[in-house]
């Protein structure tokens, strides 16, 4: 059970052009709270700063200003405190073809985080946990899957391995950066459904980063719309999608594929 709060986060990047430099504000005064059992979706175009927020929350980047709070206390930035933070906040990456090492078996991928965060476990115990994780993401028979290498799995199966890996240290917060955008449309819902189920079972707080408004609406409780580093609209998922107020949200909603719209035209004509 972890509540993660971002308070007035700002991230500047310095761009150098010859001797001159300029500043790019990638994230501009962003605040939100990830509570156990709730999903917040972060939507916006490429380059709007969504992934920078993920990096800040994972402490892969230092915020220029603002702070991150874990259960009300400032997040630790080094040493054992950082280790504990990293155990609490885990990540699922976009590309399951690149995020798993082709040289290693599935078992190896899941074993590493378990051993890192629980160094005292015996080999037998670790193996049992690996199998249990695979069963939880419905990759059965687990023994068989554990021995495979990434190329012997489909994209959706690989993404489920990545989810199992993120769950291995028993985190309280999961950050999912476009977890289904590389997958076939027909299996996206299955992976999201699985993610929602695991979230309920573990009482996880989830940050779902995407540019797909339709899945954001169905998967998230709250939607934040980002444009050029700022949050331009936020609110209840249905509210934001069905009654968008900000111009940019309207643009996004209009750009999303919506067969109903075209087909009603076809019916009319």
């Amino acid at each position, binding site marked *: 059970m972890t509540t993660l709060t971002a308070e007035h986060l700002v991230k500047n990047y310095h761009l150098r052009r010859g001797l001159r430099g300029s500043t790019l504000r990638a994230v501009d005064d962003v605040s939100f709270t990830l509570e156990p059992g709730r999903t917040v979706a972060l939507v916006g175009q490429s380059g709007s700063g969504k992934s920078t927020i993920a990096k800040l929350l994972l402490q892969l980047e230092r915020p220029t200003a603002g702070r991150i709070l874990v259960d009300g206390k400032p997040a630790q930035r080094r040493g054992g405190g950082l280790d504990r933070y990293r155990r609490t906040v885990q990540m699922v990456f976009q590309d399951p073809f690149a995020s798993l090492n082709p040289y290693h078996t599935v078992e190896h991928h899941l074993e590493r985080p378990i051993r890192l965060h629980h160094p005292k476990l015996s080999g037998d115990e670790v193996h049992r946990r690996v199998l249990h994780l695979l069963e939880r993401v419905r990759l059965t028979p687990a023994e068989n899957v554990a021995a495979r290498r990434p190329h012997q*799995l489909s994209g959706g199966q690989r993404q489920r391995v990545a989810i199992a890996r993120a769950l291995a240290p028993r985190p309280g917060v999961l950050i999912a950066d476009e977890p289904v955008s590389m997958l076939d449309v027909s*299996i996206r*819902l*299955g992976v999201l*459904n699985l993610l929602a189920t695991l979230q309920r079972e573990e009482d996880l707080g989830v940050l779902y980063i995407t540019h797909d408004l339709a899945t954001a*609406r169905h998967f998230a409780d709250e939607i934040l719309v980002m444009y050029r580093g700022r949050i331009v609209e936020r609110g209840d998922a249905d509210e934001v*999608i069905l009654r968008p107020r900000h111009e940019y949200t309207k643009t996004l909603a209009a750009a999303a*594929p919506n*067969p*109903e719209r075209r087909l009603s035209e076809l019916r009319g004509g």
Partner: protein
Amino acid sequence: MNGPMPAPPVRPVVSAPVLTIEDFSVDYLVDPVVHAVKNVSLTLRRGEVLGLAGESGCGKSTLAYGIVRLLKPPAAIVSGRAVFHSREGIEIDWNLLDAEELRATRWDKISMVFQGAMNSLNPVISIRDQLEDVFTAHRPELGRHERRKRCAELLERVGVDPARLRAYPHELSGGMRQRVMIAMAMALEPQVMIMDEPTTALDVVVQREILREITRLRDELGFAVVFITHDLPLLLEISDRIAVMRAGEVVELGDALSLYTDPQHDYTKQLLASFPSLTGERGSFVRGGMDERLLALDAVRLDDPNAGSTA
């Protein structure tokens, strides 16, 4: 399994065909042989957008590459042919062309926007040189001045500032690179363009711009498009007709409206049920209970450990 398909229901032909694919089959001659495309017959009419939908590994890209005969061994076309009907009424059977004729006909009559078009530009050659290359290869009679003028026009047509001709691919955004690829495919004003997942890597706003561009150019220039993607909602929006492919076969073919409102094949129904609606009822399919049926589509197969390794 390998027998001919019962003919899918088709609307009566309204305009003349520009490309006919008859009984087309492609095998990958590996052990065991993979039948990637099985007896596919399709007709592309002049000026229409034909959507080709299906999941990874269903053979849709193989079919596209097969049509323009770009397949490399171990892939082999084992039956069927693709016949191009030119505006002047000449029929070109792509199987009967020799290497030189193939080179000359490709891009001129049928061009392609490749999958991962973002990365199909040569990173060490400027945009101008890459566009000019099309003309030096296919229109050698053009002078340098004329070539350059045409390159500038092409970029303008797809909405990229002609000043960017001097740029290298890494200096352009993903959407712009995509536009350059489309400009290149249009260079010789082909009558058919095959687009293999042209917008997959782009975000929705840029994707929408590109789709508008394609539709506008289609209306302006009147070429026909084969649009390949796994994104069925997208296809429903832009296609006139849609063919749904599964395991190398076309399981259903129909115009967009009837495919959406009255799907015949179980697989089409499954595909249609697999994306949530943006504005419709808020379903419980994501946040409801665990639905094992959704993952059954992607279950681990024990008999074939290499399943799913195709692109």
